[in-house]
Every structure is written in C-alpha cells, then in structure tokens.
C-alpha cells in the first residue's frame, strides 16, 4: 500500500480517536487503535496521548518530519456499537484488507450514522432494567409494573435533557427525583405497595456502568489520570442520583 501523506494520516487517526472517546472507549484502547491505524497507513512512528476530555497525536514519517494535532472532546455519550465497529475497521486496516480512502469513508459513515435504537426501544430497555431489579428484590407484580414505568420515564427525561444540552449530572438528578416522586405517589395511592422497591428499580438505569468499568480498566492499564477522572465521574453521578432521592424522601417525611 502506498504511504499516505502525514496530513491525510493524521486526519484519519484523530477522527477515529475522537469518535471512540466520544462514545465511551477506555483510554488505552483509543491510544492503541490510533497508533495501529497510523502505522498501517504508512507512518514511521505514531505517539498518542488520550485523556477523557481530549486526544493528542503525533505522527512521524520516514523522512523524520512530524505533525501533531489535538482534538478537544466535549460532549460524550455511550455507544459501544461504534467502538466495536472502529475496532473492526482498525483491524482490517492493519491487515491491509482495506485502503486509506475506503477506511476514511467508512469512518465518516460511522461518525454520522444513527446506530443503536430509537427512543421507544431504549425506554422499554430502561424499563426492563428497573423491572428486573424489582423482581430481584422480590417485588409483587404491581410493584414490578410501576418500577418499569418509572425507569422508562427516567429514560424519557434523559432524552429531553440531552436535547436541551443541560449541565452535567442534570439528567441523573432530575431522573432520580422523578423516580422518587413516582414511588411516593404510587405508595400514596396504593398504600400496600412498597415505595422502596419502586424507587430502587426506577433509579437503577442511572447507575454509571460505563464510567465504573472504564475507571477500572484505565487504572489497570496504568492510565492513572483517566482512571481518576472517570472514577470521579462515577462518584459524582452516584451523588447526583442519591441527592435526588434524598430530596424527595426528606420532603415526604
């Protein structure tokens, strides 16, 4: 494969890194993928540095010229499907099963496409998580049903808040307040129901699963800076969820 120019290589590599970081990949995976892709495109050396809020990469060619770029990453979501796709793309690039032009086209398509599921399926999924946890807590059929609804409504709030580009942790806070209110209201109407099971089910979809696992795997890999910041993100998310519930309970008692 003919080597591409430094500018072309860095365009491709930094876009791949940005997409992976935005969608919740762990730090070492982003760095390794960027390095592998740059070398596969013909760079002599590639060095990258990734933290949860930005990507830095330096690419050097055979003549010793080098080029450095950084990309700031602001809004982050979670879409593990995109990460798996870029993983696959980088593997194909390394094995020379695909050339630069095709890889760049595929990458742009991955960045744009709406993968995953739309609002209603993800509301149902969120509801299922809440309902499943209510079952694990030995909830009755009515409690499981209300937990399902609470968790689904929490997901709807996430949808609304993400459109408003709210401040961080707004969605977790509002979501847990809503779950708390639903639990209290349901228990007010039907006193035989357990308020606690409904609220626990309702807030379970707010657990910061990706932040926790990424904090762990970053720390194992030695990316201490990313590990600490992701751990802090997980801790603050849990505090936001807890505060929402505490406020509702304090008002009720």
């Amino acid at each position: 494969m003919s080597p591409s120019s430094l500018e072309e290589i860095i365009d491709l590599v930094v876009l791949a890194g940005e997409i992976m970081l935005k969608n919740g990949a762990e730090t070492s995976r982003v760095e390794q993928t960027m390095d592998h892709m740059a070398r596969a495109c013909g760079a002599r050396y590639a060095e990258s540095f990734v933290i949860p809020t930005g990507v830095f990469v330096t690419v050097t060619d055979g003549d010793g010229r080098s080029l450095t770029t950084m990309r700031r990453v602001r809004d982050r979501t979670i879409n593990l499907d995109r990460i798996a796709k870029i993983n696959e793309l980088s593997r194909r690039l390394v094995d020379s099963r695909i050339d630069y032009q095709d890889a760049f086209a595929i990458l742009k398509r991955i960045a744009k496409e709406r993968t995953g599921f739309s609002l209603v399926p993800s509301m149902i999924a969120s509801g299922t998580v809440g309902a499943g946890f209510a079952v694990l807590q030995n909830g009755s059929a009515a409690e499981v049903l209300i937990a399902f609804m609470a968790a689904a409504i929490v997901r709807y709030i996430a949808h609304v808040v993400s459109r408003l580009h709210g401040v961080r942790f707004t969605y977790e806070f509002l979501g847990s307040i809503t779950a708390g209110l639903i639990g209290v209201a349901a228990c007010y109407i039907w006193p035989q129901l357990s308020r606690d099971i409904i609220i626990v089910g309702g807030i379970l979809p707010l657990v910061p699963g990706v932040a926790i696992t990424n904090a762990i795997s970053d720390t194992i890999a030695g990316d201490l800076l990313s590990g600490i910041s992701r751990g802090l993100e997980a801790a603050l998310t849990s505090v936001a969820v807890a505060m929402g519930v505490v406020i509702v309970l304090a008002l009720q008692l």
Partner: protein
Amino acid sequence: MVLLKITAVFFMGMAVGVMYRIPRQLLLAASMAGVSAWLVFYFAALNHANIIFGSFLASLTVGFIAELLARRLRKPATVFTIPGFIPLVPGREAYTTMLHMVKGDYIEGLALGMQTLLIAGAIAFGIFLSATIYRLVVNYRMGGGLGHAGKN
C-alpha cells in the same frame, strides 16, 4: 421464584445492552454472562456466604467470562462486563442507607453505607482482579514461561 429471577437477570442484561448500544448480535452472549454471574451470587447466598464475598465471586465470574468472550469474539471486553455486573449493583443497600440518613438514624445509615461501599468495592475489585489475572495468564502463555513473561 428462582427461575423468575433468572429470567429477570437475563432480560436485564439484554436491556442494559440495548441502553448502552452494544452490537445487536452480542446481546445474547452479554446477557448470558450476566446470568452466570448472578447464579454464582445466588449460590454463594444459598451457602450463607457473606454478601460482600458473594458479590466479589460474582464479579470475578463476570470479568473472566467477559475476557474469554472478548478474545473469542474479538470485541472489547467492556461490551460484556457492563450487562454482567448491573444486576449485582447494591441498589437496595444504597437506597436504604439514604433512607436512614434522611430519617436521622445515622448509626444504622453509616453501618449500611459501609456495607454498600464494601459491596461496590468488591464488585470493582473482582472485575479488576479477573482482568489482571487474565492478562498475566495470556502473557505467560505467549512468553512461553515465566522467564519471558515481560515480553509481549
């Protein structure tokens, strides 16, 4: 009752997979990882094991299954870890801690809060440990013995 709970864990794993948008063809594998971890947790509880130790064993299971699946299916391990450990999250304990705190029962709140933190720590450490052990084993095999373990 147990069958109902296993079904619930299975669907929870799938639902978490949908929420975090893992590739569709992996949903089944991811939720099976969750079910096996929960079964470990359940049998630990049946044998009167400490809940913290049970959570640790279960998350160790999640971690190992996730690493094995990740290697076999050539996908990031995170895809299988997250659906696996969500059913183990000490949500009830965390909630009851807050309830005690709001009521002003600080002693009970602290005791339960400590337990919650230890369970969460045990889950995190289980995933941590399994990933580390897995990496050690792979390096050992690839290096052909302890002498070359560092080279990978």
